[in-house]
């Protein structure tokens, strides 16, 4: 019955969605932002800690959301650690393309590797109304990096 849903709900997604590894506020942080999906009430708060050089050291989040958005947030938190703002934004762009088209854009080696870990989110492109679930955490990331406090996934 749900065979075709396996594209959307891959094991990685179900697993990160159920048991996120980074689903907590950071004790100390340098930036934070909230993301809202006005269409459904989903919400994420993201915290970032920067390295002295200004790259992302750690990310943590609290979210109310579906399996897709929690998994996306958790994968994001895992993957952006170590990236500077420019690279993190490039990855956010790539995720956007991936979830809209299903195909990963070409990126340079270090980013390409991280993007590969996001591939389980590619299936979302077949479910237009769910794309925003996957991108909401990344909108919050952009907002935190820009120093804005709110983002929406419209």
């Amino acid at each position: 019955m749900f065979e075709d849903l396996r594209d959307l709900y891959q094991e990685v997604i179900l697993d990160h969605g159920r048991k996120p590894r980074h689903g907590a506020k950071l004790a100390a942080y340098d930036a934070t932002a909230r993301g809202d999906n006005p269409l459904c009430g989903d919400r994420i708060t993201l915290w970032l800690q920067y390295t002295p050089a200004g790259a992302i050291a750690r990310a943590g989040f609290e979210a109310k959301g579906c399996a897709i958005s929690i998994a996306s947030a958790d994968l994001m938190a895992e993957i952006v650690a170590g990236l500077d703002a420019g690279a993190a934004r490039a990855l956010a762009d790539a995720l956007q393309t991936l979830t809209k088209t299903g195909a990963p854009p070409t990126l340079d080696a270090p980013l390409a590797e991280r993007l590969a870990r996001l591939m389980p989110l590619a299936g979302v492109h077949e479910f237009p109304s769910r794309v925003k679930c996957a991108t909401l955490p990344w909108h919050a990331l952009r907002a935190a990096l820009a120093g804005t406090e709110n983002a929406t996934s419209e």
Partner: protein
Amino acid sequence: MNTATRPAAPPAPFDVEKLRADFPILTQEVHGRKLVFLDSAASAQKPRAVIAAMTAAMERQYANVHRGLHWMSERTTEAYEGARDAVARLLGAPDRHEIVFTRNSTEAINLVAHSYGRGVLAPGQAVVISEMEHHSNIVPWQMLRDAHGIELRVTPITAAGELDLAALARLLADGKVGLVALTHMSNVLGTYTPAARLARLAHDHGAKLLLDGSQAIVHRAVDVREIDCDFYVFTGHKLYGPTGIGALWARRDLLERMPPFLGGGDMIASVSFARSQWAQVPHKFEAGTPPILEAIGLAAAIAYVEAIGYSAIAAHEAHLLDHALARLAAIPGLTIFGRAQDRGGVVSFTLEGAHPHDVATLLDRQGIAVRAGHHCAEPLMHRLGIESTTRASFGLYTTVAEIDALAEGLLRVSEFFA
């Protein structure tokens, strides 16, 4: 119900399969499965009668209204004004001039917030809404509060999801409340509010009562004279009619006192650059070319519902609701929100271990259309301590078998996420 002016409903036995044949969309398939449409509270499907009325207008008899002296315009004006008669009859309104056509319920409430709120209420007065309102009956009052110095008071609901009438009486006690604006039926909890009691309560404290009938009018006969409210709004697309049309009923003396809302053609008596004079009600509130085809479609929808009869519809839906509550309650991990004594055909719930979005997506793959989210009632979600629910809602075409399909579908969803 005002039986004097309402055409007698034939006491036909309610045959849901026969009625389903009136709705072409119900034979559609979705993801290779027969459509089970349980999202009627968001917007209902349209019977052939509505589609045919709109098509006939466009194919055979159409022109702009009111301003034309030619045959097509005269006939179209009659059809448009005939729709006003149909709405007046539907609501039991004493005077057809009390019906104002709007785009939807939202615009109707904004019209009242603007023209009654800014034009009649004075800064320092208060408006009361409840914890279980749709955003459309919250945001216009917030905007009024911020622009015009009106206090906004929120009356609580009980654990059962009913209005707390004692609390409401306390909110009214200081006599500052000019308007009470409440839903007639919650789009999340299904709760009917005790309309006539609310009217007495409001009036006893010198306040007017607006009822948001967006959901209520779909399921039950409404008579504004019996209720004795002051404003009533509803929206066409939930009542089996087209989008793009809604209606406001208000007592004529209130409409007369309210300044106009939008300016433009058709709402004026005369225009000069120095100053314009307004047309009489309801035209004062209908600026520009109105939703003509939509009014014609709405009139057909009203006639369709009246021919079936509200009592037959209500009986059918009560049966569906009982069945749904029983079936869903038996699903492990499922929580139903709201247990009002008097409730209509919507059931909101959460399922342990599965977010409402995921539930909706998995049901959709089984051909079952339900809604997931905050249902434009975020404050109610906060009140309930949740972000969102899944909601199944019924129309006159909903069957017991579809409820069963929902229950079975939910069991599969639980398994998937187990």
